[in-house]
């Protein structure tokens, strides 16, 4: 029986369910001490003086002067310091680090910091400091707008979203000697161990040997993509100065206040349509609040802009995006990475276009949906693995959408739909520049996968092993997966962008094919016994047909796309304006499901996060910091908040993916919010922002 396509036993073993799986805070080292971050209490200004109001004996204290390399987190830019030197740009910005072996003394240490404060900028619409501008142009949108029968305008807003991985950020930095040189090993909850390596090499200069080992990670969702470089750098600084292992685990409040969140957005649409429903022009303006430092904002903006026109064909498109500075903690990667924001906007806008035309919104989508052979906003010609119509028709059929929408008129129940897509893998030439590698090693009993791809709950260990097992033709049980330790595994690129199964899985497939040739009919055990170990390493080769112009932002943005259509059925309480989701039907096409149960888990989990984004999750900012930074006050869905989920997995294989697989991790995130808001529209509620809280809905209703 092949492994691929079956819900085989997972490579994680049973440790997660017995409590034996080792997360960062479960691990201790001899002589380990604890670290704490002293953070700014102003949003903008300068540090004037620092005074220690505690007995400093026994403490390790680190500030920016302890940095031997460069005090910047090396990501896209190098603008963000590990530790404030003088200028403070956001609340909770790290200024100092303390370490001590007694946690009570550590937490009791009072540090008095005097600041010169300046007036902070919190409103992105008033910010003039632009991190990145993007322009996507196709045809002549201005002319086409002028010639349209009708122009529909609208502005749509999305707020911050906090990841709420149930395991907060945490790392342990352990000094170690490598070949006589003093180095450090970082054990931690990370999605991208090699990102941390890159950041620490800049922080320390190349000199100390550094390795990063991923511990069992309790959720990431992008919140542990780039942020861990910061906490790892802090722990490493303390470890190297004290000579002791240093553990830093954030408590929930610190994690929520200080670490990255989803970029808030304001998206303006002006769409030209003809009376028959054809969309002839799309003019879109995208503004994203990047926070105080660049981090990943340019790429979030990029993906957001590329998806901003939705899964629709249109010959004349102008998308202008910018991401700007504000004096708030920097925003960063979060599942979907810009697309949930812009696809929310376009799908609600489509509903309004249908209303303006007096046309059925399913019919409007049907008419304009991308089909194989159509070109996207960046001019990419879509191929056979394009499934917009397939998912739309299935969702409409399965939910009896048209008839039931009619039936619900005049009740307090609404039915809404959203059509969406999500490019898998890095944008454009991204996969090419990553130069991702994977390695397969022969072992006495089978093979070992050695990549930097991390298991964060999505099933990396399992799906990679399934692919290798079938590609190599050996039993699934004989494939083991190495724990990501940067000193021991190949750099397969970050575990992000819905690429881990599709892209890294493909490299592993190539490795397996090469190994199969070299084994030449022997089993791994036979070969190992006779010839000993060997390993095979391959690099990712994007499909040769991909052409992308980074300067003009034109061409093949992604090798393939996943497609989805969500239908949300909701009920609004007439007295309290609370929205009760009754059922959510998620039809998603993502090529071949390598492990059906894991794939379903991605859809169900991503849908839950999308529902939270739509209805519950509101970050309240006060004075530039999150005021509701407890799980009591920032609420994610509980069991009782979740509706019935009806998941349909459809398949339209991507030939370039391993066994026809496409990326899936982020796709489910793009649909729930517009589906829910479109259900509210169906009830006559003109909601154009999320979260659609009861307070917002109350203000949308006719005055009582």
């Amino acid at each position, binding site marked *: 029986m092949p492994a691929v396509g079956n819900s085989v036993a997972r490579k994680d073993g049973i440790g997660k369910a017995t409590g034996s799986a080792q997360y960062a*805070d479960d691990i201790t080292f001899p002589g380990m001490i604890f670290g704490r971050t002293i953070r700014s209490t102003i949003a903008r200004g300068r540090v004037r003086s620092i005074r220690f109001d505690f007995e400093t004996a026994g403490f390790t204290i680190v500030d920016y002067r302890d940095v031997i390399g460069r005090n910047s987190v090396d990501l896209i830019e190098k603008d963000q310091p590990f530790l404030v030197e003088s200028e403070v740009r956001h609340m909770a910005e790290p200024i100092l680090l303390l370490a001590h072996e007694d946690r009570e003394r550590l937490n009791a240490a009072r540090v008095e910091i005097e600041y010169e404060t300046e007036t902070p900028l919190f409103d992105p619409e008033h910010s003039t400091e632009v991190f990145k501008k993007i322009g996507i142009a196709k045809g002549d949108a201005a002319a086409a707008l002028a010639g349209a029968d009708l122009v529909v305008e609208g502005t749509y807003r999305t707020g911050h979203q906090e990841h709420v991985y149930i395991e907060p950020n945490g790392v342990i930095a352990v000094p170690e000697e490598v070949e006589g040189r003093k180095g450090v090993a970082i054990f931690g909850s990370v999605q991208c161990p090699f990102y941390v390596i890159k950041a620490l090499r800049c922080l320390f200069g190349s000199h100390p040997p550094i390795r990063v080992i991923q511990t069992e990670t*309790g959720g990431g969702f992008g919140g542990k993509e780039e942020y861990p470089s910061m906490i790892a750098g802090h722990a490493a600084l303390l470890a190297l100065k004290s000579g002791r292992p240093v553990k830093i685990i954030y408590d929930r409040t610190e994690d929520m206040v200080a670490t990255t969140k989803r970029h808030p957005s304001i998206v303006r649409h002006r769409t030209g349509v003809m009376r028959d429903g054809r969309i002839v022009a799309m003019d879109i303006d995208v503004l994203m609040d990047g926070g105080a430092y660049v981090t990943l904002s340019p790429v979030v903006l990029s993906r957001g802009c590329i998806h901003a026109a939705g899964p629709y064909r249109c010959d004349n498109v102008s998308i202008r995006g910018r991401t700007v500075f504000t004096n708030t903690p920097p925003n960063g990667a979060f599942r979907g990475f810009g697309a949930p924001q812009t696809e929310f906007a376009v799908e609600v806008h489509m509903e309004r276009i249908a209303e303006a035309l007096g046309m059925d919104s399913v019919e409007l989508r049907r008419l304009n949906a991308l089909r194989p052979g159509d070109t996207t906003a960046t001019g990419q010609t879509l191929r056979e693995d394009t499934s917009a119509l397939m998912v739309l028709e299935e969702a409409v059929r399965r939910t009896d959408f048209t008839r039931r929408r009619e039936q619900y008129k005049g009740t307090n129940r609404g039915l809404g739909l959203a059509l969406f897509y999500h490019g898998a893998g890095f944008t454009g030439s991204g996969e090419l520049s990553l130069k991702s590698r994977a390695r397969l090693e022969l072992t006495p009993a089978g093979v070992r996968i050695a990549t930097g791809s991390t298991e964060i709950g999505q099933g990396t260990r399992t799906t990679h092993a399934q692919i290798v097992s079938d590609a190599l033709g050996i039993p699934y049980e004989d494939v083991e997966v190495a724990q990501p330790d940067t000193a021991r595994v190949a750099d397969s690129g970050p575990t992000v962008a819905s690429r881990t199964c599709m892209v890294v899985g493909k490299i592993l497939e190539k490795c397996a094919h090469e190994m199969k040739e070299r084994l030449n009919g022997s089993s791994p055990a036979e070969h190992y016994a006779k010839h000993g170990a060997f390993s095979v390493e391959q690099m990712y080769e994007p499909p040769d047909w991909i052409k992308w112009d980074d300067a003009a932002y034109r061409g093949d943005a992604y090798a393939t796309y996943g497609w989805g259509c969500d239908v949300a059925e909701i009920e609004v309480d007439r007295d309290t304006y609370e929205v009760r989701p009754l059922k959510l039907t998620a039809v998603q096409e993502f090529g071949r499901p390598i492990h059906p149960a894991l794939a379903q888990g991605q859809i169900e989990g991503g849908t839950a996060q999308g529902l939270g984004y739509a209805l519950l999750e509101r970050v309240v900012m006060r004075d530039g910091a999150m005021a509701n930074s407890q799980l009591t006050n920032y609420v*994610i869905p509980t069991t009782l908040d979740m509706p019935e989920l009806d998941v349909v997995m459809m398949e339209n294989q991507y030939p370039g993916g391993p066994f026809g697989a496409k990326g899936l991790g982020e796709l489910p995130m793009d649909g729930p919010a517009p589906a829910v808001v479109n259900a509210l529209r169906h009830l006559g509620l003109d909601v154009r922002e999320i979260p659609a809280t009861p307070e917002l809905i109350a203000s949308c209703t006719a005055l009582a």
Partner: protein
Amino acid sequence: MNLVLNGVSTDVEAHPMARLLDVLREECGLTGTKEGCGEGECGACTVLINGEPVCSCLIPLAQVEKAEVVTIEGLGDDHPLQHLFMNEVGAQCGICTPGMIMAAVALGPAPTLDDVKIALAGNLCRCTGYSAIYRAVLKWRGMPVASAGGAQ
């Protein structure tokens, strides 16, 4: 002080106001019980005290004198619910899983889907959307899972 920990009479030395969660993880070396929030909101720290699921991050050690405390380790490593959580993908990243299992294990013999949802309403999961957790728990009790959704 003395408590019955996972069926064994155990002497523990710690401050009486120490959180039970910390005593379990540190003094007792049982790191299966997790801290997700420290406010009693996420349920990752759930243990049984005298058969009842509680948040161990809210319990002062003084209150478990002579009590029967069961943690995830008390279920061993071969409990059917543990296998079901892995096989049904009720556990993805796994950090909520010990607490989720301890809340579920207190369920009666024939729970409906609603019973399961209510029993787990104090346990947050960010990965699964809960459906697979319902499937795992209902299967454990031999109850029908059709209403808990299934893939096409």
